[in-house]
């Protein structure tokens, strides 16, 4: 094979990776909180490695719109165009879900959590294994502190970018939420 063909192939191979490198560069900023290896630096910060791309995109968009309030995230996305948000979402969705050293819930907690999940019909959206898809996040093996804080924020309305979750969570007690967060974190 002539050398020039190899050169063309090599050049072609670089083009897509250049864009990927750009996103990877941007993603280094994300890593300062969400973790270089996917394990968040603080337990109240969510895992985004391996999260569903549609969900990650909509959250970035909602941070930008102010629909989801966050002093930390709002400035990060203030000038971010849709394509870039989508590229970041795709980038993180392709990373492996990290090992948080999960601890399965004890039997009594699991039973209570399953009763809540059945009552709230969580599986209709979060699907088998609570893995979600598209716009619906994976919530299994997510960090306990983040899960509990999120459930509480939905219930109080502090997290306002999914009113349905607010209406739903109002039906459940603190103990229900704690059981659910413990159970999901241990899956």
């Amino acid at each position, binding site marked *: 094979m002539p050398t020039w063909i190899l050169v063309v192939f090599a050049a072609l191979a670089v083009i897509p990776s250049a864009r990927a490198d750009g996103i990877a560069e941007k993603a280094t900023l994300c890593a300062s909180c969400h973790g270089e290896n996917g394990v968040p630096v603080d337990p109240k910060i969510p895992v985004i490695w391996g999260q569903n*791309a*549609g969900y990650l*995109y*909509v959250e970035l968009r909602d941070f930008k719109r102010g629909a989801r309030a966050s002093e930390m995230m709002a400035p990060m996305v203030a000038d971010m165009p849709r394509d870039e948000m*989508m590229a970041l*979402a*795709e980038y993180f*969705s392709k990373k492996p879900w990290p090992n948080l050293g999960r601890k399965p819930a004890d039997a009594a907690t699991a039973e209570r959590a399953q*009763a*809540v*999940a*059945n*009552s*709230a*019909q*969580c*599986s*209709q*959206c979060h*699907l*088998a294994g609570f893995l979600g*898809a*598209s*716009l619906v996040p994976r919530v299994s093996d997510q960090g306990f502190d983040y899960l509990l804080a999120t459930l509480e924020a939905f219930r109080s309305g502090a997290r306002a*970018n*999914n*009113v*349905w979750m*607010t*209406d*739903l969570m*109002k*039906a459940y007690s603190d103990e229900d939420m704690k059981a659910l967060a413990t159970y999901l974190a241990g899956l």
Partner: protein
Amino acid sequence: MSIGNPRISGGVALSALLALGTTFVTTLGVSARADEVNRATLYGDMTSVSQDMLNHAGQDANNFLMTHGDYTQKRYFPNRQINTMNVRHLHPAWIFQTEVKETQETAPIVVDGVMYVTTAFDHVYALDARTGAELWHYKQPLGAITVYCCGPNNRGVAVYDNMVYLATLDSKLVALDAKTGKVAWQSDIADPELGYSETMAPTAVDGKILIGTNGGEYGIRGFVKAFDAKTGKLIWTFSTIADNSTGVWATKDATGQDLHRDIAAEKAALAKLGDPAKKLGGGVWQNPSVDLANRRIYFVVGNPSPDLDGAPRPGDNLYTDSLVSVDLDTGKYVCHFQYVPHDVWDLDSVSATVLVDAKGENGASVPAVLHAGKTGFVYVNDRKDCHLIRFSEAMVPQDHMYALPTASPGTRMLPGANGGVEWSPMAVDPTLNLAYAINLHQPMHYSVKSAAYPGGDKLWLGGAFTVIAEEEQWGNVTAVDYNSGKIRWQVKTPQPMIGGILATAGGLVFTGESNGFFKAYDSQTGAELWRFQAGAGVNAPPSGYSVEGREYIVVGAGGNAQVDAKRGNNIIAFTLD
């Protein structure tokens, strides 16, 4: 030379060319044929599905050509080889495992020994219906954003001519070559980012592919569309939401029960807000039935948006929660009948319509259309003008029905928002005048909370329904005499039922349960005659077919997202030795 492996035969063809030159064409011919045999029909040129075959699908004891059997949607398979006397010997002929272990609602379609099934997330498989061997596999490349309620379901394909038609979660209509699974064309149905999605199977008739839409939980404006089967070009669109959606300000439902509406408040809201038609919902979850003689289709329209909050949508919200008939050729309105005006419970109309001849008010037989509601009633309507002839006895407890939703935690009411009868299609045995429905008993709290339209990619329910954890849930199989509305027999099941049912000329009905049991009942009496444990929820409608003189019953066992039935990835075909 191996006929079954084109790669090997190609290699032989190359050696033949080198050795003899002139044999090349002949050998390549064999190779091409081998390729065809491997991928195509199992019975010569009987791949093509003609309109004549579809017109007579209800009398076809070999094929299962439509989601619900034929254009009347009776799901009545006219083969009696498997019957009440021998069904106890039924056993698996084969089990095919798909790539997708998620909610499974497919209705298998069988054409001359080739079966087409779908899975969650829009995969299609063509299988050898005798062995379960895979012929081809198509996977819809879904984008990052798909918006759908109640699971990433798919209820199956339509077949017509030499094509297989799939409607997808990202709201596309895809035509596949029936022999190869290759895409022939793809058309956009609607914008998925505005909450439109597809889980229903299309219907093929007279060169048209008919399709509705999901999205009643996302503030869409629903429709039924007809596309050209050959080109994918849009032929007509019928909006399931009337431009004037307010209607007659009905205070009672179809059965005369009070809906507790505050008409004065609604009229005041109408003066302030205007007609809510643009975001009023009205999805269509199941195939229309087709009355070929009158060139009309009959379908039911789902709930208004937002589901639980009536404040932003004054009026009857036509044609939500209604039976609707339109002209097959033009898509023009013919008639409608609303079951639950101004629904604030999601007690909508989702199960497929069924065409039968039933007794009219004066006792004479009239062309009728049946629908099983989430309310737990089977409704019998006149096909001529859509008016209600009768409704059945309630198939499930109705407790405080139409009590208005209140602030969280809400008001208790039965049936729950999944029914009664969900999307699950009925079956009909016309020799017994019985319609068979599967039901849920799932007590729920209904709560209401007004919220602004959140954009098409967020659920817009205007409140919440929660299953009451302390109360028992169950289901049932119910046989209703549609000439009298009386329940002929009823069998209780340990869990709420979602899936579908099949009746056969063997005097049987087949249906599955969330706990994995797939059962056969005597269609006359409800006696259980056979059961099989599938290892995962059987929440899909069964189909019947025959190949080489042997009858089979086939069903998907993959569980269900809506009732969280145990997931699996099985397509199971049963037969007798």
